[in-house]
């Protein structure tokens, strides 16, 4: 799946998906849940806490 396809499915800009991947933006719970729904995985399987969190 491309960034563009994912961004369309969860209703955000491609820039936001890109910033997410680069670790520059932390998604809201709603967006994290939407992304997990698209991939059919739980949020914990996609996102994890960093040391600084």
């Amino acid at each position, binding site marked *: 799946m491309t960034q563009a396809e994912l961004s369309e499915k969860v*209703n*955000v800009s491609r820039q936001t998906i890109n*910033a997410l991947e680069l670790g520059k933006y932390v998604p809201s719970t*709603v*967006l994290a849940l939407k992304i997990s729904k698209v991939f059919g995985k739980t949020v914990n399987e996609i996102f994890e806490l960093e040391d600084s969190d």
Partner: protein
Amino acid sequence: MKERFLFPHRFRNVSGLIFLLSLLLLTVFVIDSDLFSKINPEMPVFAIAGNGQPVYGEYSETIILSTHWFKFIYNETLDEVLFILLIISGIVYAFSKERIEDEMTRQIRLESLAWATYFNYFILLACYLLFYGLPFLYVLMIAMFSNLLFFIIRFRWSVYKYNKEFNEEQIKN
């Protein structure tokens, strides 16, 4: 999630243009008000408090300088028109939705607003200590819209930065 307090995206460009134009005209007007004397009609206005020739009453050279309370007075209205245009178009431009308005633009907007408020008051404090007497009126005039202006600059710059990073990333991949 619902977008509250934001104007439709289609208002953005036109309000930005009006904002720039009125800012430009206002600057020229402040530097040389005679330039616009032909399109600066003197009109009766209602003033809570104001200096000028009262509409009702005798003409007098000395009465112009005294303050009239709750009276109709004559006033040149071009600066009022320009200020109203500037503030309204500035508000609409600053708070128009992006083409794709999502939670990241919302966060950038919030951060820019906080930054602009801090920056604006920092500058104002500095000006308080650097401008005295009548020139301080210029500071007050600019302070009427400076928060909005700083916000717009900061927000647009942040969005531009994100887009640039995004484009660079696209070229890399």
